[in-house]
């Protein structure tokens, strides 16, 4: 298989414009003859479904939540980047492009990232027109703040609830199309397989989560906007329902999986409080604008937040400011996380030992409590609610947690996977963030893909396709449907001795220990063996009660965990093969003398795309060389 990224030739700044002109168009009268399936209704899915409905296509949109508005994009806190340069501080499309390429540790495509930076400015205009209430200055114009990995203020925000407001904007556009009859919405419906006819994606199999009914839906193209797979780790900042089932089933039907081991560990999350922990809560990166990260210079096991105030300045180590004087507390996420881990490995962690302080005392002294409250009030309240500690009086305790997955289905410049007619948008694809995503860039990518990329690129595919619909009764659909049914019956018949969550937790621990913030060959090999064993045990000893024709949350989880087990193994394989450190992928064997990630550009300047070869078969690696014509690859430095 030859991977063709379809990046247009020509100067960087002209690629997208030129490409848009070269794409074939579907005439307005014909658009209504094409059906498009959109799975997932987060920022990417809702914006795509709405925009395609507006163009005249017939859209069917699916989400497993009870409302499209509850997709996990809703939880994004900090903001969205855009190269508006409203602050007159030297920002530009090129600078946003450059920061994103560098932030991703030179493992993303120049063409894609430049397009993302170009479209960023349109996103803000679009959201404002929809009535998204962004933060504003007293003069009535939009406010900005700075985020990790950048030295300009280009982040637009709506208090600590930017994702919510952007998603509600896209959701309102989606609702308008539902009302117009151009989008048919299927809430509480989960996609369980993709159906190929003559090698092209022509539909999906779904389960109605309330009645248990398994159904086939046919269309001319299928868009997967189903988010990331951070829940492989069990504990993550993702919502409990976030899962990899849609992309994994697509992978098993022929879509290559790009860079599965590239996961982002977010530095500022609330530490684990006990074995009962079901998820981890993020404290927005924006807190690092004013909060100072530190640990005691000498180990003080069990140090509590309320006692931190008694530690004199001279005995504190503000390790990010010390090691990275120019970026300080605003270094990118991977760097901040790794440093926090190193401090804790060094025995200088506070609280349970797996935590560092994020201290606002200086900011409160400088700006007053009122100003800090206006900026971060809701985050401080949330922290207090969860931990019982008051961050106005004592520092927060934070620790890194799994947050985002840069890997995902491999897509070309048109966002099409290696299966014709099957697209992946937003976090579900691998395309724009390389080995590390910068803060406030996920919202940007989700909306760019949905509002401004797919409406153009999908036309090019559909224009070459007959308008005839195909029946969802065909053999290919029936076969897929029966397979889904038999998997469900299998689960209900095992009647083992362990719950789905128990298996999931075990998988998560293995992934965290061996394929988390630091990885090495020995550990990864151990993880692989363990995941295999766990998977075998899962299929023999899991207990899923209830029946298939009702709301059955255990059954839903079991199917998702089965896919996480297989994906976990691929993540380990990918991490093992990439014998370098880059961004969030830190192989202990490859580091600079001062402990920074050591890339090996001569060997690994490529995107890894894995091809599924069947049950228990080793996946085949394909390489897409990354070509840098504009940016010089250097050791990423934030010092």
């Amino acid at each position, binding site marked *: 298989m030859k991977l063709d990224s379809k990046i247009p030739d020509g100067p960087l700044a002209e690629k997208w414009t030129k490409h848009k002109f070269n794409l074939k168009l579907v005439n307005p009268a014909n658009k209504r003859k094409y059906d498009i399936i959109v799975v997932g209704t987060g920022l990417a899915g809702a914006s795509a479904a709405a925009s395609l409905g507006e163009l005249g296509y017939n859209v069917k949109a699916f989400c497993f939540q009870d409302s499209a508005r509850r997709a996990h994009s809703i*939880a994004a806190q900090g903001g969205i980047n855009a190269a*508006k340069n409203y602050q007159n501080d030297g920002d530009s499309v090129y600078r946003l492009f450059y920061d994103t390429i560098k932030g991703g540790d030179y493992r993303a495509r120049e063409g894609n990232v430049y397009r993302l930076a170009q479209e960023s400015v349109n996103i803000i205009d679009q959201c*404002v027109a929809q009535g998204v*209430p962004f933060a504003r200055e007293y003069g009535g114009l939009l406010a900005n703040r700075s985020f990790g990995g950048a030295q300009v203020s280009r982040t637009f925000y709506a208090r600590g609830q930017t994702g919510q407001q952007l998603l509600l904007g896209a959701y309102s556009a989606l609702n308008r199309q539902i009302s117009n009859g151009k989008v048919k919405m299927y809430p509480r419906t989960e996609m369980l397989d993709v159906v190929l006819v003559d090698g092209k994606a022509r539909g999906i199999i779904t389960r109605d989560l309330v009645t248990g009914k398994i159904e086939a839906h046919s269309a001319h193209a299928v868009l997967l906007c189903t988010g990331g797979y951070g829940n492989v780790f069990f504990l993550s900042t993702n919502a409990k329902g976030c899962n990899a089932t849609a992309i994994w089933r697509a992978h098993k039907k022929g879509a290559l999986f790009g860079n599965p081991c590239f996961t982002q560990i977010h530095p500022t999350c609330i530490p684990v409080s006990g074995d009962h922990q*079901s998820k981890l809560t993020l404290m927005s990166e924006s807190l690092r604008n004013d909060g100072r990260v530190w640990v005691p210079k000498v180990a003080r096991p069990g140090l509590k937040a309320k006692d931190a105030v008694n530690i004199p300045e001279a005995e504190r180590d503000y390790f990010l400011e010390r090691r990275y004087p120019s970026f300080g507390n605003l270094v990118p996420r991977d760097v901040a996380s790794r440093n926090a881990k190193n401090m804790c490995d060094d025995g200088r962690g506070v609280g349970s030992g797996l935590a560092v302080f994020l201290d606002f005392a200086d900011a409160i002294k400088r700006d007053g409590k009122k100003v800090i409250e206006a900026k971060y009030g809701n985050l401080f309240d949330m922290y207090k609610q969860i931990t019982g500690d008051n961050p106005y009086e004592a520092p927060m305790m934070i620790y890194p947690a799994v947050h985002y997955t840069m890997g995902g289905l491999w897509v070309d410049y048109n966002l099409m996977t290696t299966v014709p007619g099957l697209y992946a948008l937003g976090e579900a694809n691998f395309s724009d963030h390389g080995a590390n995503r910068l803060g406030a860039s996920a919202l940007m990518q989700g909306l760019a893909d949905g*509002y401004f990329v797919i409406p153009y690129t999908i036309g090019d595919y559909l224009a070459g396709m007959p308008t005839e619909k195909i029946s969802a009764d065909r053999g290919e659909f029936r076969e897929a449907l029966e397979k889904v049914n038999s998997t469900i019956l299998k689960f209900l018949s095992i009647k083992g001795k362990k719950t789905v969550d128990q298996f999931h937790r075990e998988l998560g621990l293995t992934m965290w220990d061996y394929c988390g913030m630091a990885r090495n060959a020995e550990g990864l090999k151990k993880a692989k063996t363990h995941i295999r064993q766990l998977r075998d045990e899962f299929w023999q000893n899991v207990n899923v009660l209830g029946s298939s024709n009702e709301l059955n949350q255990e059954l839903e989880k079991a199917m998702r965990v089965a896919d996480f087990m297989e994906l976990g193994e691929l993540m380990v394989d990918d991490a093992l093969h990439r014998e370098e450190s880059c961004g969030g992928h830190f192989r202990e064997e490859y580091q600079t003398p001062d402990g920074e990630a050591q890339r090996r550009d001569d060997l690994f300047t490529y995107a890894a795309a894995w091809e599924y070869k069947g049950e228990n078969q080793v996946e085949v690696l394909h390489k897409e060389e990354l070509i840098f014509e504009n940016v010089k690859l250097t050791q990423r430095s934030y010092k």
Partner: protein
Amino acid sequence: MKITLKIWRQKNQGAKGSFKEYKVDHVSPDMSFLEMLDVLNTELILKGEEPIAFDHDCREGICGTCSLYINGRPHGPLQTTTCQLHMRTFKDGEIITIEPWRAKAFPIIKDLVVDRGAFERIQQAGGYVSVNTGGVPDANEIPIPKKVADEAFDAAACIGCGACVAACKNASAMLFVSAKVSQLALLPQGKPEKKERVERMVAQMDAEGFGACTNTGACEAECPKSISLSNIARMNREYFSAKFSSYEVTTKGEG
């Protein structure tokens, strides 16, 4: 901590439901309320009993999926979502009663899970600004006074959980509907359609079978996102002014 739970169990919408009692030992005060239910569910499954169905997703207080009527109050004793409620709020040995949202417009699906589709249909009736993707003015073209933007944000912070309906003795959805109406009526982008919007959304709200508002303010008192009662006043104002002056709405969509 040790606690006793009285939980509403109901097989499906048509079935007759009842309270069942469960004891949970070894409850940590640091657990969230939902984590306590996870622990109970694990115990139930290991005993071969069907776990309790309840809605939840983000578990950080923003998606609006979780519900639960706890000891007679939506989302329990604190003004927060159930997922942000922690067991340290309760006393050792306490008996806690858990019910689903109770409202005719929110039929029960199973146990503690209800169908909030009525909210969706209200939003679809007009909770949007009719702009297509592309071709919009620059974001800074229309300045919006900070105060107005902040007030619109306060209304837009609604998470659509339905606590307002559950709290209301009439099961009225006025707080939810008024939050969206207010957000868009306050902003210049929403003004061109403000009359049709409020008429359509209110008509849909009534069609869904929500009760009338009698201004008791229970909704505001229980709202986990502090959506203000003044939104209801604004919606009433918008509605009356629309009724007196708007064109008759005869078409659906494409307002």
